[in-house]
């Protein structure tokens, strides 16, 4: 059979067993790649818009990534459709919900490694100069500590505890 044009690369998506619709989308193929590509294109965007050095652009991406992922993974609690699942997750942040609360799964390990890699790239390309170094370190410290298994359902000083 002649190949008319390139055949696309197919992946199989088996329906995952996760009942929590807020997190089961993370089990599908392509999620990790999309995440990495988003970070890369954000870096390109920052570079092209501001014309700063690559290291400064990675710092900007790292800090924006810190703000966004902290807000959506570790601050916002519950699901966007609490009426459907009767609010059983309304006290859990997204990070505490994924993989059904199991710790140290592949997804969690991947999501913990990404801020560290971003930190290493940003610090290397800025030659470990202040003040970028300090800001990057704060970002990676907060993010990695928030993702540790010991911090599951912990609310320090009652910050972000339930209403």
């Amino acid at each position, binding site marked *: 059979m002649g190949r008319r044009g390139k055949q696309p*690369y197919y992946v199989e998506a088996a*329906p995952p*067993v996760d009942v929590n619709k807020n997190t089961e989308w993370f089990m*599908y193929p392509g999620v990790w790649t*999309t995440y990495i590509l988003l970070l890369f294109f954000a870096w390109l965007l920052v570079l092209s818009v501001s014309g700063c050095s690559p290291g400064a652009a990675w710092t900007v991406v790292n800090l924006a990534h810190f703000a966004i992922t902290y807000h959506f993974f570790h601050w916002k609690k*519950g699901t966007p459709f609490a009426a459907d699942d009767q609010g059983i997750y309304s006290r859990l942040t997204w990070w505490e919900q994924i993989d059904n609360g199991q710790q140290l799964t592949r997804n969690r390990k991947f999501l913990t490694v990404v801020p560290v890699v971003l930190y290493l790239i940003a610090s290397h390309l800025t030659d470990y100069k202040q003040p970028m170094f300090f800001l990057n370190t704060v970002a990676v410290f907060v993010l990695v500590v928030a993702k540790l298994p010991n911090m599951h359902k912990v609310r320090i000083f009652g910050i972000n505890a339930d209403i």
Partner: protein
Amino acid sequence: MVRLPYTTALTTLFSYGLLFAFGQLRDFFRKFVDWFKAKNVKGYAPICLGLEDFYVRRLYLRIQDCFGRPIASAPDSWFDVVERISNDNNKTLQRTSHTTRCLNLGSYNYLGFAAADEYCTPRAIESLKKYSASTCSVRVDGGTTKLHAELEELVARFVGKPAAILFGMGYVTNSAIIPCLIGKGGLIISDSLNHNSIVNGARGSGATVRVFQHNSPAHLEEVLREQIAGGQPRTHRPWKKIIVIVEGIYSMEGELCKLPEIIAVCKKYKAYTYLDEAHSIGAVGQSGRGVCELLGVDPADVDIMMGTFTKSFGSCGGYIAASKDIIQHLKHTCPAHLYATSMSPPAVQQVISAIKVILGEDGSNRGAQKLARIRENSNFFRSELKKMGFEVLGDNDSPVMPIMLYNPAKIPAFSRECLRQKVAVVTVAFPATPLLLARARICISASHTKEDLVTALDVISRVGDLVGIKYFPAEPPKIAEVGHNKLE
């Protein structure tokens, strides 16, 4: 198990990310705008917290003209769809007085009983005149008519069980029965893609709920072994009882359940089985008796068989068929039987007549014809769609066929363009389906003629090209092949 191109997975995730980002942005600005607005509800708690209805406000409402379209005629193979307009970008919709005559590919009209039928409709009208539109009472007070008793016996006979009980609503049948069968200390193992009514009933029962991978008897066995060995959570006492809940045809996948293997596993571990045949009763099987007949399973092996009258019988309501003891127990404990108004008598008569037609007891062979027609129609439509290169789910003989769309923007594109070309399809998105796997679900009916199906295939093929959902290479049409051979 669906196969999709990798780039489609990436673009779908990116699209949802973009929609999510814009929704959050608009919410952020809305917070500022609302801060300055005077509020006279000080002291009251908000009805909805910000994140809870995010999906409805920022994603669903953008395309809400694709859902909930009102119709102005009986849901036959062609019907009138009311046109709606919006003046504020789909936040609210107003009905106009115009209707469009469209081909109906969305109604659960598997055997064509949804429109006026020469045997069923006169009898339904007669029962309306005799018994009036409502019994105005609950079953245990004054709401049991001769028709209800007749239908319960008929359903039991049709399905192959000793006894049956009726309910006025299909959803309620599941959500009110499961709490009566099992409670705290029991275990419910349900398929991961079960319908919301089953999930609701399972949650409401208070039993522990575990989920097994869709249609996988091997994983079911694994879950059963793990749970039986572990016992109840914390106390590790043995489970009071275990019920495994599966569906006959899964309405979002069009797949048949692997019933013989699942029943074998359940028998091995002495678990009860509950089969929800909402979409399969009356639509599959040699004589319309559902998946048990189609897959060669003895109805006595399934403990509880549930079904609805909305799909193949053109009525409303649901039933449970089981042993006489279980039905007797349900009649004394189920709140949907004790406190809910009984089924409307014309609806009961409609089901009685429909079952009689299917069984051939009305004196004609229209039932057998309808069953043969829906089988032919489904197989023809599915094979043609697959040949065109669409990703179509579901097994052969199943009248439900979802066409995968994936990207969120293709949902309104497909839906609106098909409506413009006078074909009405139902599109389903998150949260009824997994996030990545949005689809357009086609329900084939025995009342669709070959010309209707060819028209539908034409329109879907053109719209599919426009929208870009032909993810697989299309097979070349037969004529080109013949020409090729001739040249050689």
